[in-house]
């Protein structure tokens, strides 16, 4: 089981790096959708004592929400917004990828200093969850398009999900589902907001929002 979890965590790392390196918004959304599907397999593999109904439910719910509904919502908002296709980063793609590498190195170092409880399933889990939170933050601050901010938020949420499922394992299903619902509401609201920002200002670049202040 351990090896499979490692492979999924590895796929998460690679999809994060792709997210940092892609220049097309559509490809970024697909990378995050892939992350959602990979995350859905985690509860099944991490479940203590075989696959339980709850774990299967959580996995199915995760895949449905993070792998299908979120990407559809975002693609819809993206199509409606009808903007140029590029991500428009403040920090170039190559530098972003290197920053992602630095983030993983830092989080590996950080987790070796912390004595985290649990984590007997995979020694990779804690660094990867920290890494995803860092990457999410980085995407939020380094991209101009509002839709990238939503993607960054989703990646951060995915990082916490990894921590909850692989490190803690015993988190009650109700909490997990509630968090997923919160994320759903947040993404929904942000998708609507992006649409309105775009309709009002003819673009969705957040770097000009500060001109609004009176």
């Amino acid at each position, binding site marked *: 089981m*351990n*090896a499979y979890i*490692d*492979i999924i*965590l*590895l796929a998460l*790392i*690679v999809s994060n*790096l792709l997210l940092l*390196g892609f220049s097309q918004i559509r490809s970024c959304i697909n990378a995050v959708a892939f992350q959602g599907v990979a995350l859905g397999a985690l509860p099944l593999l991490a479940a203590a004592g075989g696959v339980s109904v709850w774990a299967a439910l959580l996995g199915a719910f995760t895949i449905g929400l993070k792998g299908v509904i979120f990407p559809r919502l975002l693609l819809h908002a993206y199509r409606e917004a009808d903007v140029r296709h590029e991500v428009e980063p403040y920090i170039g*793609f*190559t530098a972003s*990828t*290197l920053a*992602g*590498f630095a983030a*993983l*190195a830092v989080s*590996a170092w950080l*987790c*070796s200093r912390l004595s985290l409880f649990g984590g007997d399933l995979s*020694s*990779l889990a804690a*660094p990867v969850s920290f890494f995803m939170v860092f990457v999410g933050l980085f995407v939020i601050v380094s991209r101009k398009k509002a839709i990238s901010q939503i993607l960054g938020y989703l990646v951060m949420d995915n990082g916490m999900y990894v921590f909850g499922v692989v490190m803690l394992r015993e988190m009650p299903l109700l909490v997990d589902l509630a968090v997923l619902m919160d994320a759903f509401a947040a993404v929904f609201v942000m998708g609507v907001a992006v649409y309105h920002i775009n309709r009002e200002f003819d673009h969705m670049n957040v770097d000009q929002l500060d001109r609004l202040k009176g």
Partner: protein
Amino acid sequence: MPPLSFINFVLALLVAPLLLGVINKTKAFFAGRTGQPLLQAYFDLWKLLHKGAVYSRTATWVFRAGPVVGLACVVLAAAIVPFGGSRAMIAFPCDLILLAYLFGVMRFFTVLAALDTGSSFEGMGASREVQFSALAEPALLLGLAAVARLTGSYSLSDMLPALSMSAPANSGPVVVLVAGALLVVFLVENARIPVDDPNTHLELTMIHEVMVLDHGGPDFAFILYGAALKLWVLGSLLAGVAVPVRTGNAALDCAAALGVMLCLAVLVGVVESSMARLRLLRVPRLLVGAVVLSGLAFVLLLR
């Protein structure tokens, strides 16, 4: 020197051009053509070796030295890289650094010979080759460093045979990452498709082919053969990391490695048939991705 490593070395020298044939056959299959014969590379070499060479009056000895030095370097590299679980002919601690430098010297002389012709066109190709290989080298060295750390030895002949399918669980992600990085290095260094297309002679996008345009006859045969051997050497490095088949029987291991090499050639053919060349400006991004992959493998081991 064990006899098996000598046999492997001779095998590399003999079979390397066959890989080109397999790649071309795969591409022909995808395009629905019959394609050139499987042994076309051997026929080409034979034909070229019987021709005379023409040298420009402005070219110096550097132009004549380029192909010879390049071939010597890659033959030496073939003697360093182990094949199929047995030790290589030449093995000493830290020979992985010599491997990287041998490719460096080969590239240096190819570039010098290209610049020596005085053609601005060849200078352009030389500049691109140097730029891309400067980015590919860290990926190769970091990946090899990760494997060295994983296996605890610094000689290729100890590192690669020490890997096996039934390795400890924590080595799985590392091997996958290093294999991914080495695959990119393999494609870049051999001027294969996501980076360079060995078949087209479209002027503004050529990298490797443009540098050897002015060579002819035996010199060009040396270059072709050197390229085939380089494909073999980097391929056996990749195959040794990605698919380490260890049955215990040396002959079986060798046969398995040969099969993996042929599969790798088919894979290259599939990649070349199914994707287009990257835009030249995007190639550095791919290479930095490879550097990051092998860097990640290294970081995972440092924990």
